[in-house]
């Protein structure tokens, strides 16, 4: 059998004509097309696939599906490496490379297994108990823990794959394509509904063991594939169920093809589905039994053993002990037996293991040990023996322990309906004592459950429920339920008083029944606390196999009924989603839009260094001939102060405010009065939140009687627009005002410096620039460089300055004309602008303000009208706003003029003395001022300029800088230059 010693000669849904080569832990193996990595490893006799998370115990393959807690592997290498892939769900492809996780140097010899010997030192809550002190020690412990824990390796380098996001709408979404789901999809489709049918496996048809049933389902699948109103998504896990029937599903488009995937396909798609109705046909997951050493390689779920032998034609062992507390495992025993596995015994925890299934097994010659339990196992890398004892009526062990040799223990501890999505949808669960399971009950959304999720145990009931749910007809939810007559213990008792042998409940996180009992004794009696303390159910499998047994053991310890303990919250995702799929195409250049001004190309060609301001790219400075940033900014500042500079200010927000009540709106929004602003004039305005804190500032010009052009800061353009709209629509619908954003339609170029008037005069012949005709804070319309323009005489640099506004399409022509060699104008960037405004003590929104700063803190009482109400005014009247200890804006001068303080530095009243002390403020802006030849800073400091003494201390990493408080206007405090 081509080196696959555990492969059957015939049967199974694999293609023996297509061998597939792969490697695991560096060794080459062969499987067949149709295999999963898990089935191919079993076919090759590999049962030890990794080590457990905490104790590094040898572990094998527990399941055949998504619930797998043990068989996690590292897939691929480099940038395509995938950590913690479930071997039970990885479809085999040629050249697949996989390796164990959680072990070093390898799974057969793992140094971390020393933890297993020391397990008495690692009880529940170990991390909390041990690493609490000293807190500096955590850094040391953490490195060791990470190394030992070995949660797989993150991919190295940028993700080379492409991911897509799909939005879909449907009348009916059916989750799960087993018998119930297929019936639901067909019934809904035949009724004319648009249907999406999603299943996590590679083929519809579910996990039925019987070939005849599978054949019938194939016919249903074929019918659905032919219908135009049905979309079948395979390899698609519906992983999140949100409000209003919005669900998220991950489609693994090419993962199963590996490097042979066609280039035009994305690796995965994230589906965002809005469904009219949802049918959950998600099935049920089998529970392991809890007995001593129930975690050895070779111990697996009975349903998994059955799936390997039937679907993959693989013998999971040659001599099996089947142990169960319900009827379902008898089918596994019979199927194993039929395929040549010797059944050492079927161990049934129930005393009354009679009825159809056991009788059938007995007829086939199988030995049934009713009222017995497997109490222990032996075997290091693979189970060698099962130890069986009789169970008393009260659930305790009695009589001698028999040893059965075996290389497979197939176990069934009952079934958990897969209610995860139902619970995410807000559905209530009910614990059913007879079924020993949580069942779906009422739901606030349009969702129905069908099949094994309702506890149905036979195919006919599943199909009937599916058909009814798909058609939207009533059904019998209780159909097909089989009582778990079992009073079997949730955890099989220990063999002796010493309680030897750990009984695992959560295999992935190594949580044992003793851990749960200990946590309960220590007071962790809420299931939510238990979970966090013991880490039960907190692995990547989210406790799909272990949670119910875990909370049953908690209930038992506390002497409560299971419904009184309840379940933890089921949260999305049902199964992990890759970050790549979540990001989709929103990566790299497409992560966020980039906004460029119409002059951008010129800046680029001039070698500008750009700064991101929101989504805008703004020239930061223009280095020339190897200049440093410091040198370039100093040159640009001095050019503005001594000659003329030009800056692209197109990113400023521009809002056209017009309508009969435009002036009334400005009066309510801005702190100052707008009644007397005439056409042709501008005014600086400050707007506050209703809490009195500064929101934004900018200049507004009156274009005509009730037409205004308002400017906002670059970063707040859309926020201010939304702010005005909100007030107009919600509070003042009586105001007749229209707002239009012109931010991108208009471009603004600021021309600043003592030569500005002379330069502008050369470019216009229809605007009178004489100071009397065109004073400060006025605007004029005319032609500049032959272009229709509005010219605003405003200044943010403190120099004589004009802001020239033209349609965006003319901006490049205007800029080119202004920067022509005949004018000797220096382009300057945002950093020079910041320095120039700081020299003037002007505030910058977002730098001097942070949402906690009032106009009073900024010494801007002058801008607060006393004659009208405005947003935020009442809040300024609160006594706390006048607290003398509020931080207020000041200038700071360092003792050493060469020292430039870091922005954000904390300010103290006294030099630091070694004990913690309260800071009295912080540096908001700080620069080297080329104009003054020294450093300057703005700061918010308690008491502001009234502070006595005016000396403060700024502790830095290596020293403390002394500074003195002063007027924030460092340069031309009376504004002679800009008014000139």
């Amino acid at each position, binding site marked *: 059998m081509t080196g696959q010693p555990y492969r059957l000669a015939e049967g199974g849904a694999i293609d023996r004509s297509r061998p597939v080569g792969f490697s695991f832990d560096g060794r080459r193996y062969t499987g067949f097309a149709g295999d999963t990595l898990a089935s191919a490893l079993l076919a090759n006799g590999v049962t030890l696939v990794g080590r457990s998370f905490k104790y590094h115990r040898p572990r094998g393959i527990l399941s055949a599906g998504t619930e797998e807690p043990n068989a996690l592997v590292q897939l691929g290498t480099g940038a395509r490496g995938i950590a913690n892939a479930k071997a039970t769900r990885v479809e085999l492809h040629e050249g697949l490379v996989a390796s164990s996780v959680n072990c070093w140097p390898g799974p057969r010899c793992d140094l971390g297994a020393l933890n297993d010997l020391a397990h008495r030192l690692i009880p529940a809550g170990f991390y909390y108990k041990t690493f609490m002190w000293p807190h500096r020690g955590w850094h040391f412990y953490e490195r060791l823990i990470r190394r030992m824990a070995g949660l797989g390796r993150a991919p190295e380098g940028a993700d080379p794959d492409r991911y897509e996001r799909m939005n879909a709408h449907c009348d009916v979404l059916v989750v799960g394509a087993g018998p119930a789901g297929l019936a639901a999809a067909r019934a809904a489709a035949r009724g004319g509904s648009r249907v999406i049918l999603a299943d996590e496996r590679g083929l519809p048809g579910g996990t039925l063991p019987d070939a005849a049933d599978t054949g019938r389902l194939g016919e249903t699948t074929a019918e659905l594939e032919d219908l135009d109103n049905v979309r079948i998504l395979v390899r698609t896990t519906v992983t999140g169920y949100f409000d*209003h029937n*919005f669900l998220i599903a991950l489609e693994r488009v090419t993962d199963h093809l590996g490097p042979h995937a066609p280039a035009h396909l994305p690796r995965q798609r994230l589906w965002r589905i809005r469904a009219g109705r949802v049918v959950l046909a998600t099935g049920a997951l089998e529970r392991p039994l809890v007995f001593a050493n129930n975690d050895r390689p070779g111990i697996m779920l009975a349903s998994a053993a059955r799936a390997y032998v039937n679907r993959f034609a693989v013998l999971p062992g040659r001599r099996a002990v089947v142990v169960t507390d319900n009827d379902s495992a008898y089918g596994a025993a019979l199927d194993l037996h039929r395929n040549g596995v010797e059944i050492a015994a079927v161990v049934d925890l129930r005393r009354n293991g009679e009825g159809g299934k056991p009788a059938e097994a007995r007829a086939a010659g199988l030995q049934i040990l009713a009222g017995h339990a497997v109490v222990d196992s032996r075997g290091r890398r693979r189970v060698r023996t099962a130890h069986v004892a009789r169970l008393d009526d009260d659930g305790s062990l009695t009589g001698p322990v028999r040893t059965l040799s075996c290389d497979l223990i197939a176990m069934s501890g009952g079934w958990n309906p897969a209610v995860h999505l139902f619970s995410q949808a*807000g559905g209530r669960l009910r614990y059913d004592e007879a079924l020993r399971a949580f069942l779906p009950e009422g739901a606030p959304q349009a969702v129905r459950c069908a099949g094994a999720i309702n506890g149905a145990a036979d195919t006919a009931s599943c199909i009937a429920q599916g058909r009814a749910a798909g058609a939207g007809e009533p059904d019998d939810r209780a159909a097909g339920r089989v009582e778990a007559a079992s009073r079997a213990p949730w955890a099989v008792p220990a063999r002796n008083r010493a309680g030897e042998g750990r009984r695992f409940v959560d295999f992935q996180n190594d949580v044992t029944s003793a851990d749960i009992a200990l946590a309960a004794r220590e007071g962790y009696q809420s299931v939510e606390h238990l979970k966090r303390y013991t880490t039960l159910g907190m692995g990547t499998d989210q406790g799909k196999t272990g949670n119910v047994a875990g909370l049953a053991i908690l209930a038992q310890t506390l002497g409560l009924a299971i419904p009184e303990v309840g379940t933890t919250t089921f949260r999305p995702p049902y199964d992990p989603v890759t970050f790549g799929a979540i990001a989709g195409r929103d990566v790299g250049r497409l992560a966020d839009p980039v906004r460029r001004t119409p002059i951008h190309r010129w800046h680029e060609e001039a070698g500008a260094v750009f700064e991101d301001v929101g989504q805008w790219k703004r020239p930061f400075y223009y280095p020339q001939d190897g200049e440093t940033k410091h040198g370039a900014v100093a040159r640009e500042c001095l050019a503005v102060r001594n000659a003329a500079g030009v800056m692209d200010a197109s990113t400023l927000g521009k809002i056209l405010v017009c309508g009969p009540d435009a002036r009334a709106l400005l009066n309510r929004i801005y702190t100052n009065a707008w009644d007397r602003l005439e056409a042709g004039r501008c005014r600086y305005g400050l707007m506050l939140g209703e809490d009195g804190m500064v929101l934004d500032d900018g200049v507004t010009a009156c274009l005509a009687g009730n037409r205004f052009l308002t400017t906002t800061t670059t970063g707040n353009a859309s926020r201010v627009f939304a702010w005005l*709209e909100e007030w107009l629509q*919600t509070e003042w619908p009586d105001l007749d005002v229209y707002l239009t954003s012109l931010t991108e339609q208009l471009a603004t170029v600021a021309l600043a410096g003592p030569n500005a008037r002379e330069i502008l005069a050369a470019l216009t012949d229809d605007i009178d620039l004489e100071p009397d005709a065109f004073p400060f804070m006025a605007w004029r319309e005319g032609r500049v460089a032959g272009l229709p323009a509005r010219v605003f005489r405003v200044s943010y640099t403190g120099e004589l300055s004009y802001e020239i506004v033209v349609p965006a399409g003319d901006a490049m022509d205007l800029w080119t004309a202004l920067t022509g060699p005949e004018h000797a104008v220096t382009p300057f960037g945002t950093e020079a602008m910041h320095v120039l405004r700081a020299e003037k003590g002007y505030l910058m929104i977002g730098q001097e303000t942070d949402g906690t700063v009032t106009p009073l803190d900024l010494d801007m009482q002058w801008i607060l009208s006393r004659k009208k109400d405005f947003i935020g005014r009442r809040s300024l009247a609160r006594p706390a706003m006048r607290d003398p200890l509020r931080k207020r804006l000041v200038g700071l001068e360092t003792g050493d003029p060469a020292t430039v303080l870091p922005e954000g530095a904390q300010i103290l009243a006294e030099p630091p003395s070694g004990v913690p002390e309260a800071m009295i403020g912080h540096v908001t802006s700080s620069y080297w001022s080329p104009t003054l030849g020294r450093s300057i800073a703005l700061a918010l400091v308690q008491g502001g300029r009234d502070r006595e003494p005016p000396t403060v201390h700024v502790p830095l990493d290596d020293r403390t800088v002394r500074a003195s408080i002063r007027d924030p206007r460092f340069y031309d405090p009376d504004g002679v230059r800009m008014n000139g």
Partner: protein
Amino acid sequence: MLLIPCPWCGARDESEFTCGGEAHIRRPADPDALDDAHWADYLFMRANPKGSHRERWCHSHGCGRWFNVERDTVTHGIVSVYRMGEPPPGGDGS
């Protein structure tokens, strides 16, 4: 993700909208008539009911209009939507 029926555009995903919090809180006509405690009430205090809640929402990535939504905070079901200035369908909007 909620599916919100904008009264102007129809049902759209929640990601197109901005929630403006509790509805029907009027700005006092004369703020000076309020003492600090009452002003703080207007400014900061909001209902947080379990069950039916009236909220303002804006279709910010659509038509840009504000409107009112009555939503059940337990089931997240939308009971009704109505335009600004309209009385709530259930009455008692004050």
